[in-house]
């Protein structure tokens, strides 16, 4: 069976289940007697086991199976949850995550998990005697369930159970018939057809094993199992079928008997197994809705390429809309103008909807942090109450994918440097348990993510001392720095205030990576701190990467777009004082000077100097760009105004051309280049501020 086409779905779902398990394990310690929770955990593990087996990932299946045994024992109150147990279970989840990653990258699920498995087995108290057998049967069951004649009882799908219940409600009798054909039976399908006919004369067939299609294709050995709802007695059925030739044996049992024979625990397990194996696509929804129905939005997985394609088509439409608007206003045709106005409204709504398609809730990244905080607090011997807010805030998928690492660094930083040890907190008169809040919310076009702790705050003296020691700033500079500037030193590269280098943070990498990452997403990060009250990191992100707000600037005949996230302020050239230091034109800015870069020189804009040189000292505009603490003033002939522009990549052929972060299409249909401000600032040697 070729499973490759299902691999994508399998991976997606495996991740979902893993996340579900992660989330719920977090709460397991506190709510170890919550049977609803335990059932949900068990179901997720169970489905994961089933689907990994189905896909042929046996290592993964076996590990999940071992974990499932623990959950099962918990569920049946044979053991109780402990912190150590949860740790081992988390370890198992980590292995599973690594397997999924490896599978996604084209590898296999091979991984040495024996240690974790032993620990897991130790948790259930015994070496799980049934293990190998169960694994085998569940493996065989998943792969060859269709042909498996050994199955003694029908394992019923939900809909089949529903049929059965319906039949029983109608006072029909439900029988399970195990029919064995002669070994030398030639026309097996024909015999099966006759059996089915015979049964249908008496009532209706609720289910068959194997499925009808398989029977038609003769994909079975000798054994067939039928579930039939009839009015007559079982004995009559038996006789009817035995009358058909080439039948070796018929075994009829009433379904109520079967139900009794099944030990309650076993039957439940077996039933969930078969149902969830089949329905793993909806298992998460169904798992929660099993007891209390929850309204679940219907979703559809769509390839991102298709959405991009739709977006491209839409952009074409937008450009033509612009042309149409011009034509309408030029011709003063009222009907045309009305229609254009309508098109405009509809397309605006379309734009919003299209952008929404790329949006995903930020909880996808947030979800992984409770575990991080849990293990960090254990490692650091700190008590932390982790609060997550606004997980439903939506962001562009691309941004979400990139956000995980920077957030992790900031959370680690807050855990390590921010929140104090319980003893110290108590000495300060604070709650020994610290609070770390991760929150997301909308602010206009932006999404704000805050990481807030109620810890010690930034020790500015220590930061400054360290910064001087590490040559990040000079002593002179240090004297004139504002509190905010000092706080921002945390993001300087090669900077760390940790007294000892720990595993958690303080390797001098981390926060500087955070800033460049956030900036590459067209966002900004700030830090605010109050001694002994805490520190707050604030990340501001655009809601989407595909549309950014940009300032269009013109020099000569050329128009460039400057992302607004890089702009600190704008001014007219005649308002600023410029002078020259060491052949570098600089301008007065606040307390210091910043280098002045002419857009025309930077991009060698042709045919401009001759006609514009006159009065160039005073005409034109200045845009102050900033990247971290570095600032550069960019001069242009004219500012054309702010505009939301659609970002398009330069493409494969030109990907090595430096200086641009992309292109966009202007209202007149021309392409305009988006300036890579980070590069512009960094290629320009920053003039050290001079007092």
């Amino acid at each position: 069976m070729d499973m490759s086409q299902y691999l994508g779905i399998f991976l997606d779902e495996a991740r979902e289940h893993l996340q579900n398990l992660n989330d719920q394990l977090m709460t397991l310690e506190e709510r170890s007697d919550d049977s609803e929770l335990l059932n949900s955990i068990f179901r997720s593990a169970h489905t994961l086991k089933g689907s990994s087996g189905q896909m042929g990932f046996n290592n993964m299946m076996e590990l999940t199976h071992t974990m499932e045994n623990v959950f099962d024992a918990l569920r049946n109150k044979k053991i109780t949850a402990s912190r150590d147990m949860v740790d081992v279970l988390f370890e198992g989840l980590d292995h599973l995550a690594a397997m999924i990653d490896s599978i996604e990258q084209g590898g296999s699920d091979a991984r040495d998990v024996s240690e974790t498995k032993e620990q897991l087995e130790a948790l259930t108290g015994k070496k799980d005697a049934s293990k190998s057998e169960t694994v085998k049967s569940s493996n065989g069951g998943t792969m060859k369930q269709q042909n498996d004649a050994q199955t003694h009882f029908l394992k019923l799908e939900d809909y089949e159970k529903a049929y059965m219940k319906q039949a029983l409600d109608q006072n029909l009798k439900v029988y399970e018939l195990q029919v064995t054909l002669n070994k030398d039976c030639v026309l097996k399908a024909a015999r099966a057809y006759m059996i089915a006919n015979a049964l249908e004369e008496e009532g209706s067939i609720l289910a068959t094993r194997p499925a009808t299609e398989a029977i038609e294709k003769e994909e079975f050995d000798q054994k067939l199992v039928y579930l039939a709802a009839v009015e007559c007695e079982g004995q009559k059925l038996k006789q009817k079928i035995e009358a058909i030739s080439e039948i070796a044996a018929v075994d009829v049992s009433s379904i109520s008997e079967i139900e009794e024979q099944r030990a309650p625990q076993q039957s439940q397990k077996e039933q969930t197994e078969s149902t969830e194996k089949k329905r793993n696509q909806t298992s998460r929804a169904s798992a929660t809705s099993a007891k209390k129905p929850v309204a679940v939005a219907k979703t559809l997985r769509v390839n991102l390429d298709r959405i991009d394609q739709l977006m491209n088509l839409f952009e074409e439409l937008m450009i033509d809309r612009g042309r149409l608007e011009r034509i309408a206003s030029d011709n003063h045709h009222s009907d045309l103008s009305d229609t254009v106005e309508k098109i405009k409204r509809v397309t605006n709504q379309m734009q919003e909807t299209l952008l929404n398609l790329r949006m995903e809730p930020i909880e996808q990244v947030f979800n992984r942090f409770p575990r991080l905080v849990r293990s960090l607090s254990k490692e650091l011997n700190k008590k932390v109450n982790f609060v997550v807010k606004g997980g439903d805030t939506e962001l562009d998928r691309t941004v979400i994918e990139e956000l995980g690492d920077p957030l992790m660094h900031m959370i680690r930083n807050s855990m390590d440097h921010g929140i104090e040890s319980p003893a110290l907190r108590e000495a300060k008169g604070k709650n020994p348990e610290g609070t770390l809040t991760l929150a997301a919310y909308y602010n206009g076009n932006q999404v704000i993510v805050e990481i807030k702790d109620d810890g010690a705050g930034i020790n500015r003296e220590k930061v400054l001392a360290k910064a001087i020691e590490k040559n990040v700033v000079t002593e002179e500079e240090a004297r004139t720095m504002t509190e905010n500037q000092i706080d921002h030193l945390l993001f300087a590269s090669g900077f760390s205030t940790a007294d000892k280098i720990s595993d958690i943070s303080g390797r001098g990498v981390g926060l500087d990576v955070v800033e460049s990452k956030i900036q590459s997403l067209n966002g900004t990060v700030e830090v605010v701190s109050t001694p002994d009250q805490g520190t707050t990191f604030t990340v501001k992100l655009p809601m989407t990467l595909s549309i950014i707000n940009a300032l269009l600037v013109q020099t000569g005949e050329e128009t460039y777009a400057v992302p607004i996230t890089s702009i600190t302020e704008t001014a007219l050239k005649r308002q600023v004082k410029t002078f020259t230091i060491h052949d570098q034109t600089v301008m007065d800015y606040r307390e210091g000077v910043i280098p002045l870069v002419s857009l025309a020189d930077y991009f060698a804009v042709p045919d401009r100097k001759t006609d514009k040189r006159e009065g160039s000292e005073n005409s034109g505009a200045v845009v102050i760009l900033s990247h971290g603490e570095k600032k550069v003033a960019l001069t242009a002939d004219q500012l054309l105004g702010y505009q939301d522009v659609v970002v398009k990549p330069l493409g494969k052929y030109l990907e090595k051309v430096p200086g641009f972060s992309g292109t966009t299409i202007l209202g007149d249909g021309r392409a305009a280049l988006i300036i890579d401000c980070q590069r512009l600032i960094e290629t320009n040697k920053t003039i050290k501020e001079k007092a």
Partner: protein
Amino acid sequence: MSQEKQLKVILFEMNGETYGVPVEQVLSIEKVDGITRLPNAAPFVKGVMNLRSIITPIIDVRERFQMGHSKITPDSRIIVVEQDEMSVGLLVDSSKEVLDIDADQLEQAPEMIGGSSAKYLSAVAKIGEDQLLLLLNLKQVLNQNDVAALRANGVEA
């Protein structure tokens, strides 16, 4: 190539020579309008152009072959070709008809012909009395690794 019976080729003119590209590699032929200059790019990259919402790089083929700049005239055309999943526009002097060529008309390109190096050509073919068709080897024309070497050559020439 010689196994193919016939080859459909789009013809265009440059420097008085007739060049051709296989029709299946041609996405469209465009008039020259609104090329945005791309600073920092190789000299033969004229810039980028918005073609139905796709930002397409435009290459001056003449400059690529180190035969000087192309002047843009009303006859100038951009032949948008596809190679290795990239679409690139070739700026040429003018575009001409589509021609069917028999495979046996094709010959290997001589070392140097019409001022362009043979490595940019996949074959030549006689068409008409004294006319030669130069069939472009797009893979080489759009080869990026070649660019650095080309620049060095350009300085010498």
